[in-house]
């Protein structure tokens, strides 16, 4: 178990919580992807981490006050009734005011061609256009690229696209993060025994430290279960619990998604 001791528990936790410095992190990625035992440890930690986060999403219970439960119920009922009456009233009045007054339509009135950034869902609060554009420009681009096929010609094109994207950001002096998620047939791209692009991938990894390849553990498990294949990954390829879960997670964290 000397491998298990290569990293302390604190270090692995920091890795899962994304609190490591970039160099430490890339070293961890490399080590973890080459060591099945460590890999599983990280997977378990990730699961735990997600569960903890999930648990804390529930709002905490309000503190008990000095009023008796019965009194509180009575007060709550009274305010509840008043609030629902006002709610219904509000909706009805809202509809009434709107219908006969077309100039109150802020959305259609705003269809100025230069202002297409304003077309957003009406349910969210939106900062003024100027600050939003600046935020989008200054923000570090984080792109998740999903590969789920093993068509050789298309994979070659996909690697070109990934390299093109990384070069584009480098030329613009923009620090970006690009994560390539491989699941299903896409896993073949990063399997040591099946990849036709091992050299190209090694070269990309060497050239761009902001690029990671992430293989889906579910796919690896399925291959073992259904075909008895023990998957060995190319050096530097990291493992994530589930490709689909990673895609959802990253999008929730504000990453952009695209499929090549």
């Amino acid at each position, binding site marked *: 178990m000397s491998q298990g001791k290569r990293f302390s528990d604190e270090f692995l936790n920091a890795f899962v919580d994304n609190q490591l410095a970039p160099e430490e992190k890339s070293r961890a990625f490399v080590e973890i992807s080459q060591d099945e035992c460590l890999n599983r440890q990280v997977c378990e930690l990730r699961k735990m981490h997600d569960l903890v986060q999930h648990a804390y999403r529930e709002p905490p219970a309000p503190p008990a006050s000095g009023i008796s439960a019965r009194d509180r119920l009575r007060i709550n009922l009274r305010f509840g009734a008043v609030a629902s009456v006002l709610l219904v009233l509000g909706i009805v009045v809202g509809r009434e005011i709107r219908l006969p007054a077309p100039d109150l339509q802020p959305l259609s009135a705003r269809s100025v061609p230069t202002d297409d950034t304003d077309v957003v869902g009406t349910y969210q609060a939106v900062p003024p256009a100027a600050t939003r554009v600046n935020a989008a420009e200054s923000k570090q681009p984080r792109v998740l690229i999903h590969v789920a096929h093993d068509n050789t010609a298309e994979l070659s094109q996909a690697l070109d696209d990934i390299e*093109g994207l990384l070069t584009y950001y480098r030329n613009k002096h923009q620090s970006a993060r690009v994560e390539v998620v491989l699941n299903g047939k896409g896993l073949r791209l990063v399997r040591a025994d099946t990849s036709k692009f091992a050299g190209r991938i090694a070269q990309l990894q060497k050239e761009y430290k902001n690029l990671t390849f992430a293989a889906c553990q579910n796919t690896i498990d399925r291959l073992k279960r259904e075909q008895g294949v023990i998957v060995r990954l190319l050096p530097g390829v990291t493992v994530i619990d589930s490709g689909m879960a990673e895609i959802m997670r990253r999008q929730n964290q504000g990453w952009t998604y695209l499929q090549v």
Partner: protein
Amino acid sequence: MRKFLSIVALALLSLGAGMAAQAAGGYAKQKVVYHINYDDEHQLAAALGNIKNHISAVGKDNIVVKVVLHGKGVDLLKIANSNPDMQQKIVNLKGEGVAFDVCNNTLVGRKINYKNDLFDVSEKDIVPSGVAEIAKLEQEGYVYIKP
């Protein structure tokens, strides 16, 4: 007093919600980026059909659509030069306000001259990198669809 104020705020909020729901007429305003990187004619025709149906469902004034073409997807505009059906589909979509953005990396890599080889492309339709363009549009709030 605080409770009263919060109830008033709630009532105002619901009034706003009532107005917003009306303004949308079923769908809220949408910004969508369609990603095309394949050259199969059936698949391309189906993708253009998807876009057409999407616009008629949401309403032309309620939607901004950009189609980003890169890799083999650029061939859509090559095919449009020789296939009148495909060309008509593109003309119709452009009439509905759809923009077709072409990846410059692809043009350079595949030595395509957009003026001669592609249907109805001008300089304003060229983006430096198709993939980076999609990432940028998503950051600006566009929803990603790959048909």
